């Protein structure tokens, strides 16, 4: 199928010519979303930096084990999922539906593993007494607020991505979704990956003991 037919398939309503940019609307919309979402993460990270600089008693509670190590594993898992996503897109482009589906499921599993590791980390911090509004070490309460809101926002993106990956994987196997849909999802997943590359150093490494 050509790009044009594919984009008409993905819900186009226009009397449309081939796009002068050679980019289907779904992909363009995803890039717009990524731009917008990057600004959203930018705003939250700005807020974090603003509060951190403004707090003389900022906490740096993370020791290498378990927090930083867990974070490193999470980073490894998420980066690997970026690789499997790439393989899924390549397979879909080459028309290898079965391989594409397998790689999508692999990405989905890695995303779910990331979310699980993250939630375990959250549970451990909860048990230590960390809350959105509470700091068990006696430092600034903004630590919990910033930590849980930033990682929470990212976690929501990961969980949303895992659900989308499962949906597309099922649909792609049944030819309900095409390679463009896989590619659009890929843009999203790599963006979630990229955001973590900011979140991990800023939220974890900068707060290491």
């Amino acid at each position: 199928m050509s790009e044009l037919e594919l984009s008409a398939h993905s819900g186009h309503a226009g009397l449309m010519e081939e796009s002068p940019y050679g980019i289907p609307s779904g992909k363009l919309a995803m890039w717009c979303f990524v731009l917008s979402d990057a600004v959203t993460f930018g705003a939250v990270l700005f807020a974090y930096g603003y509060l951190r600089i403004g707090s003389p008693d900022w906490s740096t509670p993370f020791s290498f084990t378990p927090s930083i190590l867990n974070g490193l594993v999470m980073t490894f898992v998420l980066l690997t999922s970026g690789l499997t996503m790439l393989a899924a897109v390549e397979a879909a482009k080459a028309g290898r539906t079965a391989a594409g589906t397998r790689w999508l499921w692999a990405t989905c599993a890695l995303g779910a593993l990331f979310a699980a590791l993250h939630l375990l980390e959250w549970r451990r911090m909860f048990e230590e007494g960390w809350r959105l509004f509470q700091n068990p070490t006696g430092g600034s309460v903004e630590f919990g607020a910033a930590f849980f809101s930033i990682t929470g926002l990212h976690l929501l993106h990961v969980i949303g991505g895992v659900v989308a990956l499962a949906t597309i994987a099922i649909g792609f196997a049944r030819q309900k979704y095409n390679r463009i849909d896989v590619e659009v999802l890929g843009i999203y997943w790599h963006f979630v990956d990229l955001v973590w590359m900011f979140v991990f150093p800023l939220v974890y490494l900068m707060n290491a003991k």
Partner: protein
Amino acid sequence: MSEAAGLPAGHHHTAPTGFIRKYIFSVDHKVIGLQYYGLALLAVFIGMALSWLMRLHLGWANLAIPGLEKLSATGAPGNIMTPEYYLSLMTMHGTIMVFFVLTTAPFAGFGNYFLPIQVGAADMAFPRMNMMSFWVTFVAFAVMMSAFFVPGGPPLSGWTAYAPLSDVGQTAGPGQGWGQTMWAISIAIFCVGQLLGSINFIATTLDLRTRGMSLIRLPLSTWAWFITSVIGLMAFAVLLPACILLILDRVAGTSFFLPSGLVFNDQMLTHSGGSPLLWQHLFWFFGHPEVYIAILPAIGIVSHILPAFLRKPPLGPRVLVGCMVAIGFLSYMVWGHHMFVSGMNPFSAILFSVPTLVITIPATIATLLWIGSVYGSRMKFTTAALFCLGFISVFTTGGLSGFFLAQPTIDVYLHATYFVVAHFHFVMAVAAIFGIFAGTYFWMPKMVGRMMNETLGKIHFWITFVGVYCIFMPMHYIGLAGNIRRYAAFTDNFLIPLIPVHKFITIAALITGAAQFIFLFNLIHTRFWGPKAADNPWGATSLEWSTTSPPPFDNFGGKQLVVHQEAYLYGVQGAAQDFVMQTAPEVVKSS
């Protein structure tokens, strides 16, 4: 539409027949545009009623307004407004007008209706997402209105919801409990609706243009909606998390915007570590682009309409596009000019002051282009044309006071006075409203297929035009005299002599507001009893005039238009008429 018409395969966009799919949950961009317009119309009359109540209170402080007690028993005991209730009405007036009128009507309303038609598409790129964006906005409006009825009534922290007032809850005032929470939830929902809409506008403009519709042939209104979408995409993306952080502060016990040691009503708050300035940064990073989200569509609409009545091409349309892009770009660099008195380092103030003054350059170029276009033309003075001229007038007046406010040294004196109220009402509110009026008188024949009454329109224009100057011009002078805004009554010695001016403003506001019912009557009369409109009653050139009035479900009746011309070929020598449609294949020599 059928395959026989040579349309892309897989196209399944057929006209719905049921009432609900046709008028309520419609995916048709034209219905959605009208829904947005209707929502804005409802909102604007509510907002105007609130301003009437406020103005009456400012002119006659202890005036009993019959029936006010019914609206709020605690806010207006004995029909006399309490100072807190005055602030509630002011907050709701600002919020309703900025979000649900100035953003909703010229951008989402007209944009939805005309952007796809002007690029030659059958609908938006994502029709279902388009429907969702309207209904999300509608829910936001409903939640905002619910603030009137929750315990404590509406919030009183202004449309900017400055922390800590917006953040500490009931203890800060009657509306700061439930009312403020509703406000934050409503605005967060509103942001989602606008983000969905912006993505749709961008994809439609870039991807769905018909054959021959190059970017440079796009009408200026489409350019404005496109640029506004790009601004909105990044501006609402900041307000959304800001509102969520505000909600977390209010309901989850965090302290993003609350420092330690705050005492409200003899109560020490338990919060600590946050910063009220953080809210101001986040809010104004959205808030300043927001004023351009309100005004750019109006700039585009006026630039689009004027040439049709000048009967000559506009001066420098490409320069105008450049101006709009420059305004949009600079709008992200100036948020700090709202915070000159927030304890900012004077060097930072200069950093924000310079780009603010630089914005006046593209704005001035745009104004000069309009005036230059009008110069030497034989203008047809229709109501739409009058509102375009009115727009240029109020935009210039408001822009001039902006020169003063952009300087930190002068702003320190003028900040939070009526001078600022006059400034932003002229340059953003009234100017955008004039853009909406111009668009309405110009496009209503296309939207409902009937002509509006010109006599009523002209009466409406002249009362409104003179009226807004009577309302807002004196505010400059009382602002210079030190009259602070957001005061419910003026009891200080230096303010008492200014009360007669407030009475004059109130009377002007009542008359100008009453004139809007002429407009409302004209709208309703046009819809049902107006004379039938021709397909191209103004002899205009862009694609919306190539189809029937109103357009069929797929806009062009299954045809794919081919664009041969630039957008504004008026007064063409040697053409069959004095204008050449964008779809006309005839060869036009550029003069």
